[in-house]
């Protein structure tokens, strides 16, 4: 590998004239996986702050009981749009950005297999989200029925409804094209000798995620198309008055929605599986079982959607099936948590920012997993359903889960992208502030939910005041802490201590990205490296 690496560098020196295009053309007509990855990541960061600003509106309104800042309809528009922006605009594009940057470099490919389609999948997104955000400006405002778009409530939306449906279709097309690109790249363009079991865990997690995307994004598109025809063309798919069935929408939505949760967490599993071995200076414990665990979780994600609908009413046998199947997911997830812990066991640990985020992920994602197990228990779910306990649960999965995973990945690979080490002190400050305030923000929401505070309301009974104030303070502090993240990234992109090709002392070269110099050359692996 070392020989292939040095000959590769020489090859790049021969092609030093081959530089990126200048100015706006570089980005508009980008076909280079690194440029497209950068665009995805920057887009995701912008959406993270827009969605975060909406969360601040929500937390400001909930700071104390009574209506003070916004009217209830606008509050509901905020909760709906916050969710859509964070899921489809922040988390998913961030993982696609990381996939674009890292998968070709990890598997020894010169680029993604379909670079022009890659450009198209990215450039759809700014249009989709301009359309989505502009729904806030139309008469009647944005869709306010929740991101789940349940009919008949969502069908009562005004002009914003078709705009949102079109935006969702565009996001879906973008995701599907991105997924196709990942699959064909991994299946066809791995370096000679890199069989599937030698492939890094991040690439593996993305391969499985891409299949999930192809299976479920069309289902969401089909469901919202039927909503559209119910709204405008007098069909009655989900309209009870016309013989339709609104509960059927819930089934179809959650057939998409539950695997979607795993689409947002499996790539984070991949990142954590890369970071922990590096900073434990040990190979990943049970690497093959990690792959089987991801595949098992992905399979199980297709057969548990009914746990979102226990309170709708369903036959006892169905309740039991969905409860047991949901609990079964704890087995492969437990395998993963065990393997990550065993990787660290007796390792020579060091606590650089990626490792700190990975360890926080391990603890805090587990809390989200445990509250998920509580919600899987049918009689308990009747109590927790539609309360802040559910809000606490999924935010633990998505913020210190998915988003900490993304941050671990960014801090892990940033020196490889920019060629500079970043400011460790600032990055650690970012970690500690984020880790503390994410708990101040979301942990009290468990108490509020167990005490009976309903979700999706702008006002509440006075006994919920104290924990809501704590949660809001945590929210504002968490939001402000993220400014440090931007400062660290911008500083690192502009300069700093030179990074070596290995970057981290404990890097285990499972992925070929560490054989490339830092920053990685604009065109990497124009000659395929040989894996022994």
């Amino acid at each position, binding site marked *: 590998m070392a020989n292939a690496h040095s000959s590769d560098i020489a090859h790049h020196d021969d092609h030093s004239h081959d530089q990126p*295009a200048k100015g706006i053309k570089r980005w508009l007509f980008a076909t280079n996986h690194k440029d497209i990855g950068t665009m995805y990541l920057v887009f995701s960061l912008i959406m993270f702050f827009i969605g975060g600003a909406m969360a601040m509106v929500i937390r400001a309104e909930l700071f104390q009981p009574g209506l003070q800042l916004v009217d209830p309809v606008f509050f509901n528009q905020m909760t709906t749009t916050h969710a859509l922006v964070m899921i489809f605009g922040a988390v998913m594009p961030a993982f696609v950005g990381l996939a674009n940057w890292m998968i070709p470099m990890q598997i020894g490919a010169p680029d993604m297999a379909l670079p022009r389609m890659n450009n198209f999948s990215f450039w759809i997104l700014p249009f989709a989200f301009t359309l989505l955000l502009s729904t806030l400006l139309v008469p009647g405002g944005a869709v306010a029925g929740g991101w789940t778009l349940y009919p008949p409530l969502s069908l009562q939306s005004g002009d914003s409804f078709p705009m949102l449906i079109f935006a969702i279709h565009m996001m879906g097309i973008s995701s599907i094209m991105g997924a196709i690109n990942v699959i064909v790249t991994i299946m*066809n363009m791995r370096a000679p000798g890199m069989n599937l079991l030698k492939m890094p865990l991040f690439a593996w997690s993305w391969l499985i995620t891409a299949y999930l995307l192809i299976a479920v*994004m069309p*289902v969401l598109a*089909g469901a919202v198309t039927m909503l559209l025809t119910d709204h405008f063309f007098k069909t009655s*798919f989900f309209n009870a008055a016309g013989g339709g069935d609104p509960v059927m929408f819930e089934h*179809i939505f959650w057939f998409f929605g539950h695997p979607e949760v795993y689409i947002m967490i499996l790539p984070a599993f991949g990142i954590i599986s890369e970071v922990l071995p590096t900073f434990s200076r040990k190979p990943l414990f049970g690497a093959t079982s990690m792959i089987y665990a991801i595949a098992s979780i992905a399979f199980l994600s297709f057969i548990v959607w009914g746990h979102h609908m226990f309170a709708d009413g369903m036959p006892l046998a169905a309740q039991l099936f969905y409860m047991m199947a949901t609990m079964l997911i704890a087995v492969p997830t437990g395998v993963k948590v065990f393997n990550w812990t065993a990787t660290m066991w007796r390792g020579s640990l060091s606590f650089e920012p990626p490792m700190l985020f990975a360890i926080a992920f391990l603890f805090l994602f587990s809390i989200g997993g445990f509250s998920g197990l509580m919600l899987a228990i049918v009689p308990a779910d009747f109590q927790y359903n539609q309360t802040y306990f559910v809000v606490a649960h999924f935010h633990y999965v998505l913020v210190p889960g998915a988003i900490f995973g993304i941050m671990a990945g960014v801090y892990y690979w940033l020196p490889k992208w920019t060629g500079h080490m970043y400011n460790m002190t600032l990055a650690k400050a970012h970690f500690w502030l984020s880790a503390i305030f994410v708990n101040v923000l979301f942990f009290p929401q468990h108490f509020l939910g167990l005490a009976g505070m309903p979700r999706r309301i702008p006002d509440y009974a006075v006994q919920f005041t104290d924990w809501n104030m704590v949660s809001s303070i945590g929210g504002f502090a968490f939001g402000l802490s993220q400014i440090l993240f931007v400062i660290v990234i911008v500083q690192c992109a502009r300069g700093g201590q030179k990074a070596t090709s290995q970057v981290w002392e404990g890097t285990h070269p499972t992925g070929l990205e560490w054989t490339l110099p830092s920053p990685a050359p604009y065109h990497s692996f124009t000659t395929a490296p040989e894996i022994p």
Partner: protein
Amino acid sequence: MSAAENPIKDAAMRRRVRNGALGLGCLALAFYFGFIVLLVHHSHH
């Protein structure tokens, strides 16, 4: 490799990539229309 150049030199691999992408695209379309047809069928029974 210029920006406009295809990263895949080998014609057989290019064919595999194209066929793979088309197959996966067809699968996605099948899921999309499949669920709509399923519900049209459901609404008639």
